């Protein structure tokens, strides 16, 4: 039972963290929760579909279907996260002000929440498909008892709990700072996903340059350990990345930071004494 719990939990850590971050980023914005919930629901539906057609997907594009699919959905998530960060750089400050002024009823920014909903959907889709296949395997084989199935579902529940913890961990940060923190989080998340995406292209034999291993820390912190998995999502940690992955990771950060800087409105002078010492909430 514990084995199944750990396998499933390991698979859903990434989705769990991403959902938590997305909820925190859009906290207090009217309608954002339904966007995130919609993303999760679409992701689950997609996961079932991908699992059902796993064989066809695998055989597609001369046996490269699975890799290309993973690489593209990850690429899509990277673009959405980048777009979100750039949008936030432009509008985040006014949004933060409105949030701390009026509390909750802010209705702007639905476009960027579509982006986040897509990111959440993609995360649930990718990892969900593996969980579905794993649980399906247990159920079909019938060789393991119900406690294994129970373990699997407990793993799912832990993943949901991780979302909740991530959310509450982030929302204790005052709104004004939250935007700064989440934009860093989102940038690192996007860079990590970009490096995962390129590794699938390498696996497919499409990206063939720079396959040498950059470093090997699998003896110290294997990335299928729980901490390794969390870091894998949050900062894109990998225990044996290829040089190409390192290059893509660095490029993604540079591109997102530069793009964010370019669109950001000029930083206003220091806040007036009247607002300076006021706690944000």
């Amino acid at each position, binding site marked *: 039972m514990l084995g199944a719990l750990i396998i499933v939990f390991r698979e859903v850590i990434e989705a769990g963290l991403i959902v938590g971050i997305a909820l925190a980023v859009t906290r207090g914005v009217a309608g954002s929760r339904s966007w995130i919930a919609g993303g999760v629901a679409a992701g689950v539906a997609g996961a079932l579909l991908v699992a059902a057609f796993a064989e066809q997907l695998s055989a597609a594009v001369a046996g490269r279907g699975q890799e290309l699919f993973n690489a593209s959905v990850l690429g899509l998530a990277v673009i959405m996260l980048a777009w979100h960060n750039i949008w936030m750089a432009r509008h985040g400050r006014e949004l933060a002000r409105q949030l701390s002024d009026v509390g909750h009823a802010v209705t702007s920014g639905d476009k960027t929440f579509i982006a986040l909903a897509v990111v959440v959907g993609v995360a649930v889709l990718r990892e969900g498909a593996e969980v579905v296949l794993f649980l399906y395997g247990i159920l*079909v084989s019938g060789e393991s008892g119900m406690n294994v199935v129970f373990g699997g579902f407990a793993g799912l529940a832990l993943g949901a709990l991780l979302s909740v913890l991530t959310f509450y961990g982030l929302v204790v940060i005052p709104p004004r700072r939250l935007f700064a923190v989440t934009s860093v989080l989102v940038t690192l998340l996007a860079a990590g996903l970009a490096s995962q995406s390129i590794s699938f292209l390498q696996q497919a034999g499409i990206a063939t*340059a720079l396959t040498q*291993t950059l470093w090997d820390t699998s003896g110290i912190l294997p990335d299928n350990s729980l901490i390794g998995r969390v870091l894998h999502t949050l900062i894109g940690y990998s225990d044996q990345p290829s040089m190409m992955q390192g290059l893509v990771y660095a490029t993604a950060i540079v591109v997102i930071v530069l793009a964010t800087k*370019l669109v950001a409105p000029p930083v206003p002078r220091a806040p007036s004494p009247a607002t300076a010492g006021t706690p944000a909430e």
Partner: protein
Amino acid sequence: MTLFRKVLLGGTGLAFLLCGAALAEETSLSVSIKDHRFQPTEIHAPANTPIVLNVKNLDPTPEEFESKPLRVEKVVAGGGATTIRIRPLSPGKYRFFGDYHEDTAEGFLIVE
């Protein structure tokens, strides 16, 4: 936004430049999965040659073929088969395993 697109396009272009398709002679290998075990558990390949590994899953349940050093992570449907491409390797012993049954499904690729 347009600038962002330009940057994005530039990045994509660069990525394609780096993705040169290096075609060399390949080594074909195969391994099957039965009762959540690999058969054979050791496969051999020459060094510095691209490898094409056919994985046949004889179990009714899906399995995920995974290897950290080979950098492979691929689901093989129950009763299905899949092709895995592996980059040219230097001599050594590379471990692979079935992610869904790691306690039994383990094998090694020996490159010499």
